[in-house]
């Protein structure tokens, strides 16, 4: 698929460097993500993929370089402001609110769209009650229906199996109604059936007219990455090696070298 098929540049990472002490987790990484694409970031363990996501998300602040989102410089702004701009994410290790129910977790994703405060929440009449009902409608019709988690909506998240927790986490990230979704290893630890479901959900939210969410996908499962990505960036030891379509990346000599030892990019599954 030609890359100019997509819209304007949504996220621009420009020459970002991040050091922990003297260790360079990222050194001068630049990449741009265009509106509507699924942009995967791959690389061997310790390549800096999650660090890059954390920089985009605002959990880490890079020492050098700029990150701009929709032509607005977001390098310095706080994580929760970036959420308000429409950047949402899931985590590699599940970071759900374990004591809350599935429904409440997803409701929390609606946080930035709700308006009630201390006083109106205390009274819970009129506007607040209506707002909660509207939120519920949105969640039931858009998210629970999409992710097929009807049967667990009232269960406490901590008691759910791993695969479902991953799905709930995706639901929570979607409830924010994001423009850019950062997916940090959404397939890690899932069985084959769950992987197929999850890949289907990612394609749905990327392509369905209702969502059209731009996704950045960090993933080790090369089979899925090659199948669903529009473009792929490869990181190795904090440096970006290349960006290109799946077939370009597969035939890139440097990429093959970085993955040396894994003779076949498809080694992880299949």
């Amino acid at each position, binding site marked *: 698929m030609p890359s100019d098929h997509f819209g304007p540049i949504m996220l621009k990472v420009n020459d970002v460097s991040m050091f922990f002490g003297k260790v360079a987790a990222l050194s001068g990484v630049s990449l741009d993500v265009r509106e509507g694409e699924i942009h995967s970031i791959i690389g061997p363990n310790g390549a800096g993929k999650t660090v890059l996501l954390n920089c985009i*998300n605002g959990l880490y602040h890079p020492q050098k370089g700029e990150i701009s989102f929709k032509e607005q410089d977001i390098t310095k702004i706080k994580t929760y402001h970036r959420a308000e701009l429409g950047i*949402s994410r899931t985590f590699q290790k599940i970071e759900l*609110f374990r004591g*809350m129910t599935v429904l*409440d977790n997803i409701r*929390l994703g609606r*946080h930035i769209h709700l308006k009630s405060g201390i006083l109106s929440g205390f009274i*819970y009449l009129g506007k607040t009650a209506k707002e909660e009902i509207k939120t519920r409608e949105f969640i039931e019709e858009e998210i629970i229906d999409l992710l097929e988690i009807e049967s667990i909506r*009232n269960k406490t998240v901590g008691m759910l199996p791993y695969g479902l927790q991953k799905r709930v986490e995706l639901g929570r990230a979607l409830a924010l109604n994001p423009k850019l979704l950062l997916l940090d290893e959404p397939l890690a630890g899932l069985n084959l059936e769950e992987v197929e479901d999850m890949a289907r959900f990612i394609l749905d939210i990327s392509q369905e007219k209702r969502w059209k969410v731009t996704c950045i996908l960090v993933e080790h499962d090369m089979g899925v990455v090659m199948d669903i990505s529009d473009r792929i960036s490869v990181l190795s030891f904090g440096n970006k090696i290349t960006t290109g379509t799946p077939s370009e990346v597969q035939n890139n000599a440097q990429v093959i070298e970085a993955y040396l030892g894994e003779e076949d990019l498809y080694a992880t599954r299949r």
Partner: protein
Amino acid sequence: MQYLPCGIYHEYYQQDHAWWQTRFVIGKMILLGIFIFYILPFWGGLYWVGVATLTIYTIMGALGVQLLIGYCGQVTLGHAAFIAVGAYTATLLTLQLHLPYLLSMFIGGLVAGLWSVLFGLPSAKVKGFYLIMTSLAAQFVTVDFILTQYVSQIGGRGQAFSLPPGSITIGPLVLDSDLKVYFLGAVLTILLTMGLANLLRSKVGRAWIAIRDNDIAAETMGINIITYKLMAFFVAGFIGGIAGAFWVSTLAALSPEHFQWFWSLWLVGVILIGGVGSIYGTIFGSLFMVLIMEGLKFIIIPLTPVYPALTMKFLFLKEATFGLAICLFLIYEPNGLAYRWWQIKNYFNLWPFSY
């Protein structure tokens, strides 16, 4: 998980969001209301009204602690300070400026809330044990230093503010009997409990629980953690302040001795025994603690002719029982009475069948 009886279906989200979803539950609530407002005060006798008033005060005090520890994960050991701020503000406004009691109660709550925010500021930087230290600072700075040394001197009344009978009035109604105080307290407790429960199912409350469970994920979902922590401190302080201002109406004289550090610890014990992270837990814990202490009196008083030393040592016994109760609960029922209550309810959901 919640079960609904056979034949009851929800057709609107509104029904699913309602507090009381079946007629059976509404019936139980009406019975509880009749008990609180009719049977207990008019048939129970003055002794039980007194016990109930103490329970109500404990519930109101513990609600704030429950909000901070149980729902927002900010451990506090100085909540008595905010109760004291509410009590003193309300008393000063009533005695010195002759404001109406309910208004000064409200202002007392606001001042206590802001005072609580002041000592909640360190929570932006520190967590867990370090936050306990700052809450201890709140206790000792507020009660033992500011209130004892300075505020108590206002008006030249010495160490304690005496509250002559008739000084606390609501409109034309003079709060001079235990019964009237009890009714005021019952109404306030119901309002505060329902308000807090409402808050916990709307935006602000969910954000608090999210911060308790996972603050990093909460921030990525767009929650400004510091603001919401401070909001939790404000609401907890406000509820504490109202509790303090209410307690004034039961007293003949207000002195810092009512708000010692042990009372802060006591409130934490209440929620540990009742169940952390549960509004029911606050109520059960308060009932349990008050009733255990009253029961202790019933055991000790008949023994005093045989062991006269017990009268002197009652305070120690009380504290030892408190400690023992907490230990036993932590060992045998770490989730508190609320969890037991939930188990019993679940059992009867399917009773008499096992599944």
